[in-house]
Each structure stands twice: as C-alpha cells, then as structure tokens.
C-alpha cells in the first residue's frame, strides 16, 4: 500500500512536469496548427541554462527565470525567422522544427558534452517527510503546485482575458479574426513565445527533479509530450492536463517494475486511446474516411 501511494505521488509529480511541456505544445498547435518538433530542444535549453546558472550563482529564482526567458526568446526567433513564411505548408513546418531540434540538441553538447551534468535541488526545497508510510518529497510537491498554478493561469488567460478570447477565436477561424483588424501574426508570435517559455520552464524545473540533465532528455520528454497530446486530443488544454497525469502515473508504475519499458506501455496506452477515440480523449472530431 505504501509503495502504491509513493508511486502514485511520483506519478502525479511526473504528470505536473509533463503538463508544462504538453501545454505549450498544445497551445501552439491549437492556434497555429504547427506541431512544434523543436519543443524538446527548447526544453533542453531551459534545463541546461538554469542548471548552469544555479550551479554558478546559487540563485534558484534567477536560474529558473533565465531558463524561461531564454527559451521564450529562442521560440520567438524560430517563429519569426523560420516559421512565419511557411505557415501554409504543414510538412515544411514539421521538417523545419525538427531541424531546429537537431541543432539545439547538438549545440548543447558543445560546451557541456555528451554526458550528464548533475543538477542540485536548492536547499530550501530539499526536504522529505514520511507521512504514514508514504514518502513526501518537497521538490515533487513544489512541482505539482507549479503545474496546477500554470494550468489555472492558462485557463484564466484563455477564458477571462481579451487576449485569450482572441486566441480562442483564432483557433476557430483565423481569417475572420484578421478581418476584424486584429494582428493575428502578433498573436501567433505571442502564443509561440508562451509555449516556448513553458517548455523552458519545464526544463528549468526538470534539472533538480531528475537530479541531472542530459542531451537526450529533450527528445525523450518531447516523445512523452507527443504521446500526451495525442492521448488528450491535440489542441485541447484540458486534454493535455488529463493526459499528462495518465501518462505520468503510468510511467511511474511501469518504471518501478521494468525501468526501461515505460515508453512501451505509454505507446500502448496511446494505441488503445487512438483505437477507441481516434481524436484523443478531448479532441474534436476530425477523422478522415
């Protein structure tokens, strides 16, 4: 029972971290119809920059903040330089972002090398308690709280502000939004920067979460994020939220029994969901015959 509860706790914390990554992916897709294959690269840069900064300055807040800012700026540059003029061509976008992913991943190896770089948990978050028979780790709780806060903030942004209204309108009919005199391209850039920033945020949190950062983690977590958005229904924020916790919990339980097989089971979950609901749990109907 105690193992079960501990694993459940791990899974929920995994889910919160995954959600930060998946939320950005799904936001970008929802508005711009771009599957951002560079998302894992932005995550990776967030992870390395904040790990590097925290090791050298020991200022946790600054390191997280810089991770977010750098990733958001990178995302903005990618969107402006590479994506804005192929917006009509889905395949070019996929190929382009995958190329960016490759470059981002290899660039990280130049200064930091192929091997993992250890990443410390700040002292004020580095506690754990045993309640009953369940181990509670402070950093995990911190991650869960942040995940929930981001979910709430995104819901507020999307449903209670004018910007959010424009974004939601852009999802349904971008031409009409443009016709109303709203600069939708600026909205695209804004959403891309938010999504990239979220990826950087997830990366910045993931260093201390996993205890180390590696050049491969970008691609690996990107895979998890893809599985999540496919399970939840791409473009649906709630779907990503639910999907994150499903995949997070599944990963925690499978990893406990068979460490390297988590991705197999995750893909299995995705396959089952796709067979029953081809558009994902919360996705809109878009099945071709």
């Amino acid at each position: 029972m105690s193992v079960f509860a501990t694993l459940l706790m791990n899974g929920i914390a995994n889910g919160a971290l995954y959600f930060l990554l998946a939320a950005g992916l799904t936001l970008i897709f929802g508005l711009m119809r771009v599957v951002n294959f560079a998302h894992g690269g932005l995550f990776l840069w967030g992870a390395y920059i904040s790990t590097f900064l925290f090791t050298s300055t020991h200022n946790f807040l600054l390191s997280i903040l810089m991770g977010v800012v750098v990733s958001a700026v990178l995302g903005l540059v990618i969107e402006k330089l590479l994506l804005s003029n192929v917006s009509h061509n889905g395949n070019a976008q996929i190929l382009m972002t995958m190329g960016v992913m490759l470059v981002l991943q290899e660039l990280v190896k130049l200064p930091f090398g192929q091997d993992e770089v250890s990443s410390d948990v700040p002292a004020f978050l580095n506690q754990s308690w045993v309640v009953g028979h369940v181990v509670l780790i402070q950093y995990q709780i911190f991650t869960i709280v942040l995940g929930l806060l981001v979910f709430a903030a995104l819901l507020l942004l999307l449903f209670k502000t004018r910007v959010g209204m424009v974004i939601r309108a852009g999802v349904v009919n971008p031409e009409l939004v443009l016709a109303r005199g709203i600069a939708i391209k600026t909205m695209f850039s804004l959403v891309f920067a938010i999504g990239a920033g979220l990826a950087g945020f997830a990366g910045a949190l993931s260093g201390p979460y996993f205890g180390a950062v590696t050049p491969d983690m970008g691609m690996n977590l990107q895979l998890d994020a893809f599985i999540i958005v496919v399970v939840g229904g791409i473009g649906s924020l709630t779907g990503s939220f639910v999907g994150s916790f499903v995949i997070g919990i599944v990963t925690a339980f499978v990893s406990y029994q068979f460490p390297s097989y988590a991705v197999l089971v995750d893909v299995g979950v995705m396959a089952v969901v796709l067979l029953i609901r081809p558009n994902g749990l919360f996705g809109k109907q878009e099945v071709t015959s």
Partner: protein
Amino acid sequence: MKGRLVKRIGLLLIVLLLVVFPHMSGGSGNLSLLEQVFPFAVFAMSYDVLIGFTGIVSFGHAMFFGLGAYAVSVCLNQGNSTTGSLILGFAISLGASLVLSILVAMLSLRIRDTYFAMITLAVGQTLFVLAGSQSLRDVTNAGDGLTILTPDWLTSDASIYYFALAFLVVSAVVLARFVKSPVGQVLKGMRENESRMQAIGFSLFRFKTMAFLVSGVFAALAGGVYAVVQMFVSTDVFSVSTSLNVLLMTIIGGVGTLYGGVLGAFIILFAQTEFGNLAGTYPFLNHYMIIFGLLYIVVVKFMPRGILGYFYTRRGRTTWKKSFATSNKSTM
C-alpha cells in the same frame, strides 16, 4: 519523348558505371562506401514514396529499416549463416514490415497527417527500446549489437557489392513502376489536393495505407541488405537519428523525384565518412550533426525541392520557353 530517352540512357550509363566500378578502383574504401550507399539509397527512395508522392512525413521510418536489419541478422545467426536462413530473414522482414505498417497505419492514418509524424516517432522509439532490452538479449544481444556471418557465396567484397547493387537496381525499377502506376497517380493527386481526391471518391485512408505499406516493405528489405553489407547490426538502426538521416537524404536529393534519394544517400554518407576522417585534425567536425541540422533547415527553407528537383524545375522552365519561342515563330 526525347527527354525520357535521354533520362533512360543516363540511368543506364550510371548503372553500367557502377557495375564496372569495382574493376577500376583499387582501394576497397570506395567500395565499402558505395556498399553502404546502395541500401540507404533504397531506404531513401522508399521514404520518398511516402513524403514525396503522398505528402506525409514520418519520423520513425527507421523502424522498418531496423526491423529488416534485425530480422536478417537474427535469422543468419540462429540458422548458422546458410543461404536458407538468409532468404528466411528477408521473408520475415517482408512479413513483419507488412504487419507493422498496417498496425501503424490503423493507428495514425485515420486522423489528420500531423498525428502521423508524432505517432511514427513514438512507435519507432518503442522498437529502439525493445531491440536494446535485456530480456531479449538471447536473440538480439541487447545494446551490444549482433555480429553476423553471411553465407559462403556472399563473403567477398565484390559479391556483396554486386548483391547490394542488384538490390538497388531492382528496387528502383519496382518503385518507379509503382509511382507511375494508377495508384501512384492517385497518391500524387492526394498530395496536391486531398479534399478533391476525396470528393472524386478515392478513400484517403486506403491509398495512404497502400503507400505506407510499399514504403515500409522496401525500407525493411533495405535494412536487411544493410545488415548483410555491414555484417553487424546494433540498435542504432532503430534510432531517431537514422530516421532523420534518411529524411535528410530524401530532401537533399529532391522530394518527389524518387532517384533523388540515391543522390542524397551518396552525399550524406560521403559527407559523414569525410567528416569522420577529418575529425582527427579538426575536432569540431565531431559535431557534424550541427552542420546536418543547419543543412536541413537551409534546404527546407531555400531549396524545398532538393538538388534533383531544382534541375527538374529548371529544365521544365527552359523547355517551356523554347517551345513557346518556336511556336511563336511558326505562327509568324
């Protein structure tokens, strides 16, 4: 008509050149590069059937390549490297790739294409994990890879070279026929205008599945030949970077040109070998993947039709101008 004749003679000349090449070149280094190029060329052509003629992007095409490579390697290893086990290996890679492609198509092609790239990436990763998993060590030797022995008639450099070359030529002919067949025409139609083809009454799902199937089978056979050429197979054949390499080969050579894949495979593998050689003197070339990534972005942005596609468009433009000029003259 004349253009087609020129193209055929050109292709024939290239094949002849490749046939006599082993007798002309002294070093076996060139030979081993070409031996690698041949299976990758087929791999890239099979990928072009997907991206170039159907317009769908897969990031997990290495799953077929790896499947073929492992099927052949495992069969040769378990069957004491007899000719029968080699044939059985190719038969298994054929069957397994058929099953796998149908499964993946069932999962992903029913929905919009954007899912396809994500799902193939994920499925490819599972095969990568499976091939390297400890519980299958008896069969696959886990992460250490398998060294294989080929049948007696397929051990000399020359015989392997001609084996791979024959495979390339046969595959190129079959794939070219497929692309020109009525099914191929429907696929091109779908690439250009999906909703119109659907409105005419073609089932998107059925035709895309067909393209994926053909593409998967040839990728798997190419993987098998690659294993024979290398006499070694490791989990690398399943990795994402293998999928990305073949994608790069295809788009550099020219998406939708089929033979562009051969050119792309040669360029990329040649560059890889050269970078590897030069890395001793210039250590930064160890990070040649950065160059490949940049190349990738540059090609997609500035040369979306690739090298061969670029020449095709140019030729189209000039012939059009010429015929326009002559027809003007005749009316005057």
